[in-house]
């Protein structure tokens, strides 16, 4: 069995699966249950200053469901912990003492004044927690008070606060980033410049989950009114993966440790984040949907996959997909693929045909010799992959690369052997003379 033990910026855990700072990590009772279930670590729900904040007393969550109530996306308007600071600190200290092999990171959010940070850092240090995570991400409530994403959206503030934290604390420092920003590389650079040991991302995305059309109220609705909340869950994973990859491959931040967050529901999701450079992953919605037991298959599945691939420790594959994240201009324009429909698997629903006919390139038949039959017309197929995506049968339609030297029936051109991209394409007014990689 593969070794899942993780050393993330000096913080050791039994596996890379941490619970993110959120309701599941708000108190000792939940965290102990999580550790018993097998979670490798937790980021304790964000601490702030006393007096404790208050939460709304109506709905805090909204969801988007599939037809069978599969939870696809979740949002929340819950704020940071609403329990007294001292109660949290005592519980953190006790849990860390009782569970020394698990990671226990404390999330923090206090006003942007150096004294406030000095004060809370000292108290957290006394708990012997493994590190701190700076919550510069929450998009609702706290941001209106100049904290959370209000900080995360200003790189200079990130750098300033991170520097205070590193200056006044011996603890490893993770900066949690908001996705509610145009270019996530800028706050990551700022965190690095401030001395952060790592970044974690993504925090939740500004969102309105829906509108009650009877009440004309956004949902979740609190007494007829709604405020934007933070969106998370499986639906946000692609956004999170991109942001993780952007930081992992940017020369300015390359090598900066990343704790990946955003819709991680299965071991495969986690492995994907790790392949894009995440040294640990954080989970919330999956646990809030199914309970802590989901970690069991995250552990088993990741371990089994690593065994199959011959990886004996997680650091052997963390970041392995990063070199393959490129920019559009460097994609190989000589790579030519055609869709191919496996007639034995085809159930003749015709979705590929109508998608291609109505919205793409008229490259799939509906009738052949008077029979209902769906075949790709290579002369028209641009290899766009839409048919693969809309086909209800897995592996029925595949994209088959054309061999070099053959003739593309669409363009009547020979499929060239080598690599060529937009930077050297004759249609590019800015074309360089030689392809740059």
């Amino acid at each position, binding site marked *: 069995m593969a070794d899942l033990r993780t050393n993330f910026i000096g913080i050791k855990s039994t596996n890379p699966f941490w619970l993110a700072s959120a309701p599941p990590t708000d108190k000792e009772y939940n965290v102990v249950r999580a550790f018993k279930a097998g979670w490798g670590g937790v980021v304790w729900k964000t601490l702030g200053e006393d007096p404790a904040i208050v939460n709304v007393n109506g709905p805090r969550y909204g969801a988007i469901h*599939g*037809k*069978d*109530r599969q939870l696809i996306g979740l949002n929340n308007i819950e704020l940071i912990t609403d329990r007294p600071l001292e109660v949290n600190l005592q519980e953190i200290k006790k849990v860390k003492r009782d569970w020394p092999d698990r990671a226990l990171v404390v999330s923090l959010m206090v006003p942007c004044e150096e004294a406030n940070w000095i004060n809370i850092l000292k108290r957290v240090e006394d708990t012997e927690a493994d590190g701190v995570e700076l919550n510069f991400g929450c998009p609702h409530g706290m941001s209106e008070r100049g904290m959370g994403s209000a900080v995360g959206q200003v790189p200079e503030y990130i750098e300033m606060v991170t520097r205070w934290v590193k200056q006044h604390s011996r603890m490893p420092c993770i900066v949690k980033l908001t996705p509610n920003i145009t270019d996530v590389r800028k706050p990551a650079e700022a965190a690095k410049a401030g001395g952060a040991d790592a970044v974690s991302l993504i925090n939740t995305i500004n969102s309105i989950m829906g509108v009650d059309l009877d009440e004309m109220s956004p949902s979740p609705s609190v007494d007829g009114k709604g405020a934007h909340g933070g969106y998370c869950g499986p639906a946000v994973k692609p956004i999170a993966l991109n942001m993780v990859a952007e930081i992992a491959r940017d020369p300015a931040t390359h090598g900066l440790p990343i704790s990946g967050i955003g819709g991680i529901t299965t071991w495969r999701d986690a492995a994907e984040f790790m392949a894009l450079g995440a040294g640990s992953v954080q989970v919330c919605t999956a646990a809030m949907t199914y309970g802590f037991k989901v970690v069991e298959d995250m552990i088993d599945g990741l371990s089994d996959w690593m065994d199959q691939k011959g990886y004996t420790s997680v650091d052997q594959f963390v970041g392995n997909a990063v070199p393959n994240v490129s920019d559009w201009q460097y994609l190989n324009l000589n790579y030519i693929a055609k869709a191919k429909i496996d007639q034995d698997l085809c*159930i*003749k*629903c*015709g*979705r590929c*045909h*109508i998608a291609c006919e109505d919205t793409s390139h008229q490259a799939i038949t*509906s009738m052949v010799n008077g029979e*209902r039959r769906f075949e790709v017309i290579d002369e028209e197929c641009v290899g766009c992959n839409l048919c693969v995506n809309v086909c*209800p*049968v897995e592996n029925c339609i595949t994209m088959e690369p054309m061999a070099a030297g053959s003739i593309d029936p669409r363009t009547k051109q020979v499929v060239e052997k080598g690599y060529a991209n937009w930077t050297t394409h004759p249609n590019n007014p800015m074309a360089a003379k030689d392809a740059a990689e």
Partner: protein
Amino acid sequence: MIANLPEISMTQTKAGPDIAAGRLPEDAYSENFSDLHPLLEQHEAQVEADRCYFCYDAPCMQACPTSIDIPQFIRQISTGNPDGSAKTIFEQNILGGMCARVCPTETLCEEVCVREVAEGKPVKIGQLQRYATDHYMSGHDETPFSRAAASGKKVAVVGAGPAGLSCAHRLAVHGHEVTLFDARDKAGGLNEFGIASYKSVENFAQREVDFVLSIGGIELKTGMRLGDNIDLAELRATFDAVFLSIGLGGVNALNKENESHNGVLNAVDYISDIRQADELSQLPVGRNIVVIGGGMTAVDIAVQKKLLGADDVTIVYRREQDRMNASKFEQELAQTTGVKILTNAQPHALVTENGHISSIELERTVSLADGTLNGTGEILSLPADMVFKAVGQTLVRDDLDATIALEKGRIVVDADRKTSLDDVWAGGDCVLGGEDLTVTAVEDGKIAAESINAALNA
């Protein structure tokens, strides 16, 4: 599935037929005759609708005799627009509610569903159709259609079964004045009198008749039988067009001695009695029942007899089981209800005692390669308190104008359901080439109405 069969005394010996009412405890009847497929809950419907792939040029739609846009109505359920879904159905099939209950979907839309082809589990199209139409009819007393300006034309529709109702509705939509005649004391035809009770509970057939008639412009006249108190020549003289949907009023005979004796009954009559009964516990039920036939009617009577408390019900069919007209689903329904299906046997003699059937002698048969059926000479006997004939129905031709063209005992119609007479159209079971299905009758009525409308506007 049969509730509370009473203890049977095996030592009982009784002279003469053992026929009695009330063989079951009171509460067993409502359970046995409850909805065969209960209405889907909203969540079930949403999940099932989500299974539909919204196929291009969908095979299910091609297979529907009334060409309902099935992917569209299912999508409308999925999007939370069940009333819109029902309208999509009613546009093509105003009796979509009944068809959802009685269509042999496993040989029509669901047979060709790509998910049937792919995984043997079709989308439950029939049950989704029921969901949408029931939803609409529970919230609306009237059809979603409005009538065109009055045309001043009058059309007689003879027979208020599925074909007649469908035709009358479509004609009314086009602005014509319709007089709808029916021989019985209420409309509905086989929907009301000829379908097993568990397929149409809670008086659905009559509610649907009211729904169809709500379009307005249709005058229903019951107790009017063609060849009795109305005749075709008179109708042709009085109305601008006539649509005949008179069904098959005659019942085929076994042509055996003693056929007129007590206990030898027409299945269609007893099925009607069950549907019209105020109290199922009042119906006479034999202990040993033999049903002759292999179609839906045979299954309907056999299953209902079993559900009424008969001990032993046997369907006797002269050919092999795969030749039975009853769908596979119906055959399985019979067998899981406890009905035996005896194939390759044909009536040999009806044995009576004191003028009442006591047993039936059957001869084994064998099908030859050329399709002919031969008796083997081997005779077996089944005790029978009741024998039901379900060997097909016939058109009563005496009711018709002698000049109307018939073939194989049915009215000949063209693609527009027009008969040999210039101003007479026909549809439903009484025409040649029909499939004896509610849904094809509805389609006949619809096509005929369009053709009549075109003729009247010409």
